[in-house]
């Protein structure tokens, strides 16, 4: 009997600490500033426990009865605390208010627990033993919870399910207490029925936890997520709002279907339309097939090789009907050959020549990607250019990342190429830049394929004019051993995001 009682103390103490840790962790995850979050939450929680302890003196009769009700309330509120907070963050402005409210309520209830239990136990033990035993197990429970939480719960269950699991423990203690203290209880049936209901609700919550988090994450991405997958290389997310389809790779926007034609027409046609008789084209990156769609507007081209690292990406864009509608089933063209390989080693090993090379990599956000923007890479790529060949590089924004844009230009020049930088406006990206590089002279084309929505031959020359706020900056070239571009890019974007 005594042991069973103290196990209850151990368990409810662990539960109490878990809810506090859940709130602190969640606030740190979502809002940041973990020192502030943990300090204020612990303070608020302990203070509320004090309020609970003070209130306990107003409970005179029916101690066991009230103890069980308190357990059930803690189980329900604590169990759903994490899910409620997630949803509140995603859908309301009241996250902080709700968080401190929940922490206060749980704190008050937990503060009531121990004094009540001591008084219940006092009837069996003398006061000295009761205090010693109850507090001992209270503290052991706290230790167990504080170890379990980071080692087992967060990595294996996540915050939402951890809270639910411990809600179940609280409710379980309530149900168990109806048997343990049966002698001191009236209305046992009612209490057992309520306990069973609470247990069932929490169990349901535990099973549905995945859906709750997904629902909350939906709103963090603002539009409905229609596809999300972690591949070996990246996190692919597709969202849709009405007719706007957006692709995010590792959280970075790649295109919005509303204006991607501006980007892809600009990437391809100023270069490709200037080549007299293009036959063979190479695309590096571009696993969405949208550049391919533009290239396929030239019937004289007989072969397009697309090298993209991620097979899941090219598979997705050659099979999903919404996406193939967007890229006009470009991957299904018999002219297109897909190679899933890392671009730099591939271009180093391959020996074929191309009339047009499209370099469409993600922005140089880290040193691994930065290698694809070096003199060594452009030298290797230039070896593949035919006599009439041109190379085009997506070169980030000359407006928001002016140093980076001109650093790419300097790098291409250092690699022995002539450069022709230009820029366009893509609403979802802002002002965006490209560079045509070649070993020969380049003249803007006088005619473009029919059916373009953005570019015209008449407006093309204007794209090569840079206003003063985007004008050339003197920059050193980016090399494998000194990746100035990654540092410049980091600086550029930090400057505008703070």
């Amino acid at each position, binding site marked *: 009997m*005594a042991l069973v009682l103290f196990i209850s103390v151990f368990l409810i103490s662990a539960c109490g600490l878990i809810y506090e840790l859940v709130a602190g962790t969640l606030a740190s995850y979502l809002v940041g500033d973990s020192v502030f979050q943990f300090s204020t939450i612990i303070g608020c929680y302990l203070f509320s426990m004090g309020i609970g302890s003070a209130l306990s003196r107003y409970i005179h009769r029916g101690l066991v009865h009230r103890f069980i009700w308190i357990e059930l309330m803690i189980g329900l509120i604590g169990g759903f605390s994490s899910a409620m907070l997630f949803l509140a963050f995603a859908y309301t402005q009241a996250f902080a208010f709700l968080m401190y409210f929940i922490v206060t309520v749980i704190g008050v209830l937990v503060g009531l627990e121990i004094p009540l239990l001591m008084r219940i136990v006092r009837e069996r033990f003398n006061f000295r033993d009761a205090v010693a035993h109850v507090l001992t197990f209270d503290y052991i429970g706290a230790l167990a919870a504080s*170890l379990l939480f980071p080692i087992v719960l967060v990595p294996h269950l996540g915050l939402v399910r951890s809270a639910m699991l411990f809600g179940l423990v609280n409710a379980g203690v309530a149900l168990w207490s109806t048997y343990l203290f049966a002698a001191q209880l009236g209305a046992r049936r009612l209490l057992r029925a309520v306990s069973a209901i609470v247990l069932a609700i929490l169990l349901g919550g535990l099973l549905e936890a995945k859906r709750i988090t997904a629902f909350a994450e939906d709103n963090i991405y603002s539009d409905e997520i229609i596809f999300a997958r972690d591949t070996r*290389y990246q996190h692919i997310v597709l969202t849709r709002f009405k007719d706007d389809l957006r692709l995010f790779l590792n959280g970075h926007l790649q295109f919005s279907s509303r204006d991607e034609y501006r980007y892809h027409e600009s990437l391809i046609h100023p270069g490709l339309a200037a080549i007299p008789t293009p036959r063979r084209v190479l695309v590096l990156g571009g696993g969405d097939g949208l550049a391919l769609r533009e290239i396929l507007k030239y019937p004289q081209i007989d072969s397009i090789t697309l090298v993209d690292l991620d097979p899941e990406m090219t598979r997705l864009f050659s099979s999903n009907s919404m996406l193939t509608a967007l890229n006009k089933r470009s991957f299904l063209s018999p002219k297109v050959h897909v190679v899933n390989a890392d671009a*730099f*080693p591939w271009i180093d090993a391959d020996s074929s020549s191309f009339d047009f090379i499209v370099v469409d990599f993600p922005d140089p956000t880290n040193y*691994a990607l930065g290698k694809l923007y070096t003199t060594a890479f452009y030298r290797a790529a230039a070896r593949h250019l035919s006599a009439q060949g041109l190379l085009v590089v997506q070169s980030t924004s000359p407006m928001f990342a002016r140093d980076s844009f001109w650093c790419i230009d300097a790098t291409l020049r250092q690699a022995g190429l002539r450069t022709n930088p230009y820029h366009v406006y893509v609403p979802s990206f802002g002002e965006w830049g490209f560079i045509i590089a070649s070993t020969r002279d380049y003249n803007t084309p006088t005619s473009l394929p029919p059916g373009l929505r953005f570019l015209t031959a008449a407006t093309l020359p204007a794209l090569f004019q840079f206003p003063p706020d985007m004008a050339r900056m003197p920059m050193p070239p980016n090399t494998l*051993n*000194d990746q100035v571009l990654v540092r410049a890019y980091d600086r550029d974007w930090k400057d505008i995001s703070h």
Partner: protein
Amino acid sequence: MTATRRRFIAGGCAALTGMTAKGQPRIAGSFVNDAFLRGHQIRDRAPIAATPRDERIPLVIVGGGMAGVSAAWRLQKRGFRDFVLLEMNDQAGGNARSGANEVSAYPWAAHYVPVPGPKAVYVRELFEELEVLRDGVWNERFLCFSPQERLFLYGKWQEGIEPAIGLSRKDREQFQRLEDSFAAFRAGGGFSIPMELGLSHSPRELDRLSFGDWLRGQSIDSPLVLWYMNYCCRDDYGAMAADTSAWAGVHYFSSRAPEEKGPLTWPEGNGWIAKQLLKRVGSFVRTGQMVRRIERRGNRYLVLTDSVRYIADAVIFAAPTFLAPYLMEGFRPLEKFEYSPWLTANLTVDRPPRGAGTLERAWDNVVAHSPTLGYVDATHQTLRSQVDRTVWTFYWALAEGSPAANRALLLKKDWGYWSEAVLHDLERVHPDIRSCVSRIDIMRMGHAMVRPVVGSIFDPRRRELAVGRGRLVFANSDISGFSIFEEAQFRGVEAADKILRSL
């Protein structure tokens, strides 16, 4: 009640630990390239088993490290082909040996060459031949990629190994003062690579005190500055500043121009250079050939191995010089030739650990205040943008305590002990390292590199050996007093030239 509660607590603890101890896969590995069994035969002057056959050859090179192989490279380029190179180990290359597994090639010891200055003409000549240097431009693919180095300090990674974060005024001031002193020494030109070229106008008095004492004389007492100075001595000399000649300490900082973005490196470290050289001179190399005795016989030298007695007109002794007294009758004992024991480990890393801090993985990764030298990533020089598996080469110069005691420790403790020590050290920065590593191979080197102790640089005996006597020429980098590729190559090439002049 008491008994029950104790049982309960014990049970609870067991349950908790049971939950944390995940089923860790066993990490495989072994000691590799152990050389001491053969080496100790020389030390113990073990009897030679069979009667060897005679072979007449104009020149024998003893030792297939960088000095010996570079001598062979020079001879071969000059059209001289009548020689053999005898190497005790199964693989030539010495400290530039390397290994390879299904993930990557990796170094066993030396793993880079700083971008050579204008005085290192032989190194530049070699690198031009290997197309590392073309038309005065270093091949970008062989220069260490960004990010080069990082240091774990105050619980986070910073870029570069010289401490730069959280410096106090005092730290800053002392770093600056040292930098100014080193710049002044550099301008004096007495500290050069190769060292021989600057020696005549180099401050001799610096060799009379330890680098530790010199720093004290400069009132350097910032723990962080001293840590960095000690790190540099451990890294290049395998010794603490207190056991290093101040001349060598200064040489480390003052011999090279504030660098071009380098150094030069390859996945297998200097093993790449060794491979290129062996492609050219491999046909002269006989591995697994331990020289047991070298005797002067009139105008000739007899070089004895277990199977052959070479009758040679000249010998280039490119093996570590400390072996000479054991091989040559009447060779006076050496005094200022101490050697640092090292341990290197190659770890097969199956998945990147969740590192502390957010800085990207660098080529050279050092942890402040660790007794080890950190690790180098073998796949850093890859052109791929995605790397899952890699090999880390972990370096540990057993610098604290006496070299003899550390050598004994290297031999006494088993693979389990050393692999545990390596993991333990890495765990400070990569708590989950054990679940990322599938194999740890360890190489123990009792005499990994010569230690530039006080008085060793201007040691008259060393100067005498540098000049050489007759047609027996000493070429190991330990004649310079410290063990770096440029010195070994310089001494090898110079020895070859001396022999060519005399034959």
